[in-house]
């Protein structure tokens, strides 16, 4: 089991110009370790769609990796996303599934105990799949293993779907996200797309 904040610190330490997308409780803790312009902490994707949004970003920005922190509860709300990733996922998409077996944001209600998320991703066609056939599915049980593998995950072609069993013993900051439009504007500005005023392509 991996302590979630340690996982975030490990990613923040090795991350350079990758876009980092997250939702739910990850949006509360990731900002404690990173204030990068290419961070996209966003509560309002619609249930289960953080990695779908991340896939769109990765398709639009092939020159850099897009990392997505996704929860296992969110995955269950949009399982078809795995099939879509297996069919179209670009090489620069890295999905880190934070497996804590609860709907943590809403009070820790338990998830169904049965699903094997690694097996689900494999059955969905992610290994050897994706847009260019480089898809990979892996499960990493320890922080040390993840830290060792992360440089490879950030450099080799994917898409990657990595299952990480996590727990959290640190306090969660309060939720204070309300202005979702400004988050989009800020990320687009960081990508060199707009200034203060949005421009269409």
């Amino acid at each position: 089991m991996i302590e979630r904040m340690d996982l975030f610190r490990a990613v923040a330490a090795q991350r350079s110009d990758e876009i980092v997308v997250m939702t739910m409780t990850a949006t509360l803790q990731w900002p404690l370790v990173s204030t990068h312009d290419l961070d996209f902490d966003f509560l309002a994707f619609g249930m289960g769609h953080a990695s779908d949004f991340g896939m769109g970003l990765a398709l639009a920005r092939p020159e850099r990796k897009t990392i997505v922190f996704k929860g296992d509860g969110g995955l269950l709300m949009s399982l078809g996303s795995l099939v879509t990733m297996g069919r179209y996922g670009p090489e620069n998409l890295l999905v880190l599934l934070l497996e804590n077996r609860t709907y943590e944001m809403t009070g820790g209600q338990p998830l169904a105990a049965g699903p094997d998320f690694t097996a689900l991703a494999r059955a969905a066609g992610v290994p050897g799949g994706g847009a260019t056939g480089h898809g990979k599915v892996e499960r990493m049980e320890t922080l040390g293993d993840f830290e060792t593998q992360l440089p490879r995950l950030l450099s080799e072609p994917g898409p990657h779907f990595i299952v990480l069993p996590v727990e959290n013993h640190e306090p969660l900051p309060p939720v204070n996200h309300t202005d979702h439009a400004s988050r989009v504007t800020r990320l687009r500005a960081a990508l060199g797309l707009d200034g203060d005023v949005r421009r269409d392509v």
Partner: protein
Amino acid sequence: MTGASAATTVAEIERLGYTHALVIPDSESRALVEELAESAAVDVISPCREGESVAIAAGLWTGGAKPLLIIQNTGLMEAGDALRGCGIGPKIPLRMLVGWRGYTGAQLGKLPIDSAYPYTEPLLAAWGIPWWPLMSDNDLGVIAEMDARAAETSAPAAVLCGHRFRA
């Protein structure tokens, strides 16, 4: 009743600079999607459900691409949470061609009326999403109108396709 020409509509989609089409198959758009698959300018992605399509499109736009959603009104209903979260709330100009299932039958007086038909307009109104009808080649200009409104408002806009596209 048949609607606009698929080939002419694809030419308009290409002219407007769309880079990706997020498509869930439906009866109204079948010919259009088959024509789009031949386009060198537009990448066609077919997710599993419309909520996924909306979120992928939002990510594409945020990253600088110009996606077009091609879905049915039933899928629009399914995608409500994603549309709220990835379009209306963050003010992302999602452009949509929405197959208006039930419209043709209702115009022909067929009973029972498909329940997908009467809820479509009120649903779009409730979300504050402007829409234009596309019934034939004569209406093709509405795609550009919809496109421009989405750009001006940085918010979702839709075209309702009342009849099946013709090959």
